[in-house]
């Protein structure tokens, strides 16, 4: 069985200063084992 998630997430409005942007970023890699409740991705609170 497989689960597919499709979602909108915050994106950077300015291409400059990416480190401070509220952009959503995945914190996983392909082939990683993940458990329910672990973070798939994060963003900064704007």
């Amino acid at each position, binding site marked *: 069985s*497989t689960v597919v*998630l*499709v*979602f909108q*997430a915050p994106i950077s409005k300015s291409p400059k200063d990416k480190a401070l942007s509220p952009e*959503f970023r995945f914190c996983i890699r392909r082939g990683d084992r*993940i458990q329910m*409740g672990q*973070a798939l991705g994060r963003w900064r609170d704007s």
Partner: protein
Amino acid sequence: TSFLQKLQITQARASINGGSSSSSQGNSFLVPGATVATIAMLGVLHARRLYDDKKVEEAKEKGIELEFQPDAKATFLRLLPLRSISRLWGFLTSVEFPLWLRPHVYRAWARAFHSNLEEAAMPLEEYASLRQFFVRTLKEGSRPIDSDSCCLVSPVDGTILRFGELKEAGAMIEQVKGFSYSVSSLLGASSFLPMIAADDMQEESNGQENTQRDESKKSWWTISLASPKVRDPVPTRPMKGLFYCVIYLKPGDYHRVHSPVKWNVLVRRHFSGRLFPLNERATKTIRNLYVENERVVLEGQWQEGFMAMAAIGATNIGSIELFIEPALRTNRPRKKLLHSEPPEEREYEPKGIGVMLKKGDEVAAFNMG
């Protein structure tokens, strides 16, 4: 082969020597001989499969992508009554075991599929059947939910197959190298997927960055000869900031689905498709695997916009139980021969609010058969 040759020689000698007793001795060798040959053949097939898997792992480590290679096995699978096989599997796994046998069966299952029995919420004796054991709940605290308010959590235990941002026209997700499927086919044509006309996208991007417009290679006559499916009068692209993640659950994994964020589920769609296996081998040989298989799609809104979750069934795990809609039945006997029926859709009440779910709430479970 040498064993069978020896067996034939023994039988020939027996027939030359004559006598009913020696003939019956020859026949008595046939059954164990056939069994040994079958076991040997299965052993060879298993060894070959292990060898192939090892090669795939090595290729992955080197960064080599798997390519789509349709083969005879995929064609053969299309001919099999997989739904009936799945339902039969469900029936067999529902058979209750005697109390003394239960721990042995479940430990063997856990050993074969690497499950952690320490996490099971109940003692093993309390799961009457393999089907019950398979959808077991976990002890409290086994799966802590990430408390960061700016994170999206995994809805299941599993392996990350694909993830990324949907940027290309048509919002395509790659199944394997050389073959992709569209998100709107996965979620349904009536999906609220945030797409905009490709021209609008062009206007939008003009102010931010210079992008090269893709030249369409299709001429007027190739379009006119193509099937109606290919003809799309308004080419669309996903809006910026639309992401996806594909997670595969192995047979030994915890098979309950939870909410990845706080969101409102507005619509449920049930696609009564096929039930192909969903393992790695199948993904690289069966075209449109995720789009053809039976699935339940939940769609709604969260604080950042669109959210959809598709739970896709397989041959062994064919039915999806929805806790927010217990009346929903999946993996039902098929009445029609066609596999391309429109999905059955339900809009949750109250309109515009639907069912509210918190991060980590239990939403669904995959059942055996």
